[in-house]
């Protein structure tokens, strides 16, 4: 269980988060939606302390990760996998080495076992035989798959997905969503997805939260969220220019 309590974050005078409260249930996929620049990625980066708040707490399994020392934070981070918006694969390594990287750096596994695990993960994300290529040599969709394989390789309890379908065509986007659902069924991780791929992202979401004006405006199970009468949710889902949400 991840619990976000009264989270505030300010960047150069711009208050992005203004007291966010959110519970993320274990074993479920929670999607955070919101307008561009609403602070979704900022909130996501607080969940594994890539950013630290000005005020507030993030509890992971009851521990406030904003107050952990370096060693304890590193232990905590090993519970997380992250799929970054651009996949963030290390340019200087092949896809195979990228996926093997966390195992080589953070475990004492032998090279034979690492090879077996990496090939298994690459096969699960549909990249069998592509491990020898460098990130610059593959498409955006393949990079996302490789990023997902890297996030999955240490079998984390929690995976954070930052805009997993941004920059992909609808077919590739659907294939990434299907892959996330399939991997979730296989590994049973807790997923947090930040996306504005609406309504496609609802297919993979157990719960949806909407971030607006620096706070969580609405949160609930997907069906309940979609049927919400909250004017901000209605405006966002219907894409109306008129309403309580300011459109810049």
């Amino acid at each position, binding site marked *: 269980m991840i619990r976000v309590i009264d989270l505030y974050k300010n960047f150069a005078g711009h208050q992005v988060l203004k007291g966010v409260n959110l519970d993320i249930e274990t074993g479920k996929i929670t999607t955070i939606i919101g307008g561009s620049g609403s602070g979704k990625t900022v909130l996501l980066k607080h969940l594994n302390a*890539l950013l630290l708040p000005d005020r507030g707490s993030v509890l992971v399994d009851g521990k406030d990760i904003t107050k952990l020392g370096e060693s304890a934070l590193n232990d905590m981070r*090993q519970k997380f996998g992250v799929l*970054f918006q*651009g996949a*963030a694969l290390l*340019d200087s390594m092949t896809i195979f080495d990228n996926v093997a*990287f966390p195992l080589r*750096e953070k475990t004492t596994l032998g090279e034979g076992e690492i090879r077996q695990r990496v090939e298994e993960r690459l096969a699960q994300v549909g990249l069998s035989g592509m491990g020898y290529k460098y990130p610059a040599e593959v498409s955006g969709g393949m990079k996302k798959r490789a990023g997902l394989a890297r996030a999955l390789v240490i079998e984390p309890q929690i995976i954070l997905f930052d805009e997993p379908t941004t920059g992909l065509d609808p077919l590739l986007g659907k294939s990434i969503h299907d892959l996330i659902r399939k991997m979730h069924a296989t590994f049973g991780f807790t997923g947090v997805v930040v996306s504005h791929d609406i309504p496609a992202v609802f297919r993979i979401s157990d719960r949806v939260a909407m971030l607006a004006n620096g706070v969580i405006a609405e949160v609930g199970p997907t069906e309940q969220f979609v049927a919400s009468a909250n004017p901000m949710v209605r405006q966002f889902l219907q894409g109306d220019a008129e309403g309580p949400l300011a459109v810049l």
Partner: protein
Amino acid sequence: MLFIVRQIGAVTTAHLFGMGRGFLFLLSAFAWVFRPPAKLRLIVKHIKEIGVDSLSVVVLSGAFTGMVLGLQGYYSLRKFNAESWLGSAVALALLRELGPVLSAFMVTGRTGSAMAAELGTMRVTEQIDALYSMAINPVKYLVSPRIIAGLIAMPLLTSIFNVVGIYGAFLIGVELLGVSSGSYFAGMEGSVVFQDVYSGLLKSVSFGLIITWVCCYKGFNAPPMATGVSQATTESVVLSFVLILVWDYFLTSIML
């Protein structure tokens, strides 16, 4: 008036904070060197990048610097009938000053800029965040090995620059302009002492530190925007050049 004073204060404070962050970055990089596991494979890889990849440009610039010194030295010394001191003048100029400084400039342009651009790209494309998220400290993984590699590779490159430069001047002075080969090397032997060699090498070690520190710091902290990488690269090269010259003055004044 108050506005101007406030602006000057703000700029000064910002620069002081920036310098403080830079020094903390360097201290952190050194602290990570001594924390296991050692990254020997990465250090060797970066020695190759800094040393081997800069070798051609260092050899080329060393050769032409020596040749120019041979020409200029010959025409200056001939006015005093002192052509036989050419070897001595060239060796002292190269070993004490030109070798360390010019090879440092070459390495900054060839490898330092690439270092800043690579780390800047990693910052902008969230690869550094990815390392943090995998519980891998990016300073230990990306910065410390480069700094150690710079400390090792820079004096080696400077030594090569010096040797090539001395032979470049030999080619012009002895083979082309007719200075006696014996007097060229005898003058050198008679006037160059061990302090001239090690003071130059000591300079080159400190320049290796300056280049890797500045370029890694600027790249690592590149602003996360489209122009961030180019800005970091330009700043790293300019700041490295300036710091090399300023530090060279202080070291020279101490070691003379």
